[in-house]
């Protein structure tokens, strides 16, 4: 990174954080601190919702995933517009009408205190566990490629987010996210335009011929990871639980001048989310084409770890991999050119043969890449903490973009980390204040100024917890995947509780409380069975409709069976 890159990076990242803290430094009204300014418009809410959902992993990992597996991942977002329509039509008007600060406060009004505490507890558990990972995951990649100290990056991101989130609460989060999204859009569009200028003719057709552009798959097989069916149905329930019941999202849209602003902000996301994700995965697919024509395309993109391992005791093995890769890469390039010639010649039969040969060459290349990664992980176990595909886009940024733009793209990574982190801290602090502290100490709720001070303290506490946890995670390499799984399997039940609350008016608090516990056990049983018998494992998106449906059915059953007094 040059001086210009540093100026761009620090100017944007620290500048936006400082501006947010300075502009909202006098926030001492509880409503503004927890919900943002009452004048917030739909566009700011829409950007805030988008910024909260898209973390650094979206911009760093998704292009790499498309590079490796194609753009089928986009189907995961197919349920999102449908879920947002339901949130707009049902969830949001009720939250606004009751004037709640958190989604779980509504559960307290609809059911009882224990159901409210269950909802808030599930949220705090899953978001609290993930709070460290959302800092750690991008930090480890940036530390590896930039050669910076991991602990410095973790502490830097964490402290910046704490400073402005604690200072201005929701008002600061909304304000900074607007500018952070401007940096993110500006950086990603710049990278895309530069990439387009470096591509060969017919790049999209080449990506298609090499199997990277299968966006929609109508295969009804449940074991298939990404299909339109799992995307629409599983993605619908996942999005509904995330946007409708996760406080980090609910807090973004319940504020604003009127109900209309929140609704339009959500509809803005419903229309633009899939095209935006398409743009990001296409970036990955086109990066794949770009690297097919580069003579020095890396076999493994985590170059720092690879080069270090190549100088170790297994150096000969790594050099053999490099030689095989060079031969396969040249062979593949020749086959791409043969395919392009047959396509231009209009000979359909010859083109089909050339395409099949090209895919065979790609499979051989993929197989070698996989072997090389296994060898690297055996030689350097710390590389298991990251996926090699996460390094694809950042390698392109650092090696192909001009100075200044490099700083802008690194700023994109930091801005996205800060925007999702600040929403998370804001929601954790709010839920702890409203659903635990105020709920358990009702007399304290009357002193508004004291509430703001307490909310600031809880927000800072969660920020420090996230930093400490991220530093701890860096020493426990197998913890990340386990935590991600634990966090994601609680969503379906939480959604089930809210579906019962909104649509099953006769079901009482005790019935839904015990139904939620039973449904969670069902989800855990299905998940565990899939791990014990991998042949019967179903795609994780399917756990969302199953868990939600189990909670609703159990609640209706318990309400019918239990005596009225016990069920309520």
């Amino acid at each position, binding site marked *: 990174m040059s001086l210009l890159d540093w100026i761009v990076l620090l100017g944007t990242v620290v500048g936006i954080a400082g501006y947010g803290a300075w502009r909202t430094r006098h926030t001492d009204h509880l*409503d503004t601190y927890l919900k943002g300014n009452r004048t917030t418009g739909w566009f700011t809410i829409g950007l805030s919702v988008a910024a909260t959902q898209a973390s650094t992993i979206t911009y760093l990992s998704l292009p790499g995933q498309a590079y490796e597996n194609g753009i089928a991942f*986009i189907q995961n977002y*197919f349920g999102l*517009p*449908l879920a*947002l*329509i339901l949130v*707009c*039509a049902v969830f949001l*008007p009720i939250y*606004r*009408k*009751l*004037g709640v600060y958190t989604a779980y406060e509504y559960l307290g009004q609809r059911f009882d205190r224990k159901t409210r505490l269950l909802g808030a507890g599930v949220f705090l558990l899953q978001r609290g566990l993930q709070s460290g990972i959302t800092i750690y995951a991008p930090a480890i990649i940036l530390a590896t490629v930039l050669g910076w100290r991991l602990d410095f990056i973790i502490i830097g991101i964490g402290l910046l987010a704490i400073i402005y989130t604690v200072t201005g609460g929701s008002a600061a989060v909304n304000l900074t996210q607007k500018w952070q999204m401007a940096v993110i859009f500006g950086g990603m569009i710049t990278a895309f335009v530069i990439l387009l200028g470096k591509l060969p003719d017919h790049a*999209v*057709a080449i*990506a*298609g011929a090499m*199997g*990277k*552009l*299968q*966006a*929609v*798959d109508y295969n009804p097989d449940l074991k298939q990871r990404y299909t*339109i069916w799992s995307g629409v149905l599983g993605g619908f329930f996942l999005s509904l639980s995330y946007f409708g019941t996760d406080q980090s999202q609910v807090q973004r849209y319940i504020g604003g001048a*009127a*109900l*209309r602003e929140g*609704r*339009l902000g959500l*509809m803005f996301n*419903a*229309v633009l989310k*899939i*095209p935006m994700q*398409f743009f990001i995965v296409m970036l990955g697919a086109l990066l794949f084409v770009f690297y097919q024509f580069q003579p020095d395309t890396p076999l493994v993109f985590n170059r720092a770890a690879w080069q270090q391992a190549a100088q170790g005791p297994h150096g000969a093995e790594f050099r053999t991999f490099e030689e095989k890769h060079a031969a396969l890469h040249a062979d593949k390039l020749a086959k791409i050119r043969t395919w392009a010639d047959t396509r231009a010649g209009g000979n359909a039969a010859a083109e089909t043969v050339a395409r099949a040969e090209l895919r065979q060459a790609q499979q051989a290349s993929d197989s070698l890449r996989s072997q090389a990664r296994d060898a690297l992980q055996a030689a350097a176990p710390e590389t298991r903490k990251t996926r090699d595909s996460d390094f694809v886009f950042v390698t392109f940024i650092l090696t192909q973009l001009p100075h200044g733009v490099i700083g802008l793209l690194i700023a994109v990574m930091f801005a996205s980390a800060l925007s999702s982190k600040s929403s998370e801290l804001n929601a954790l602090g709010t839920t702890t204040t409203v659903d635990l502290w105020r709920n358990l100490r009702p007399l304290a709720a009357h002193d508004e100024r004291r509430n703001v001070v307490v909310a600031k303290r809880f927000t800072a506490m969660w920020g420090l917890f996230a930093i400490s946890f991220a530093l701890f995670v860096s020493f426990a390499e197998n913890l990340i995947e386990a935590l991600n799984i634990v966090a994601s399997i609680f969503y379906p039940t939480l959604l089930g509780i809210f579906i019962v609350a909104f649509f099953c008016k006769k079901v009482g608090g005790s019935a839904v409380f015990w139904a939620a516990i039973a449904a969670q056990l069902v989800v855990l049983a299905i998940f565990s069975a899939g791990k014990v018998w991998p042949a019967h494992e179903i795609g994780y998106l399917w756990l969302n409709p199953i868990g939600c449906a189990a909670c609703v059915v159990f609640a209706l059953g318990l309400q019918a069976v239990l005596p009225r007094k016990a069920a309520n």
Partner: protein
Amino acid sequence: MTPEPDDESPGVPGFRTWRGVYLFVLGCFILVVAALTWFSRHFA
């Protein structure tokens, strides 16, 4: 906090009700999926 009434008018040019906005969003979604299906069949 003062509870507020539902605001029925979306205040978006061309739309009188929220139902119209939701139908528009649904139409956009169907159009995007159809376009992606065509894209997959054409290039993949």
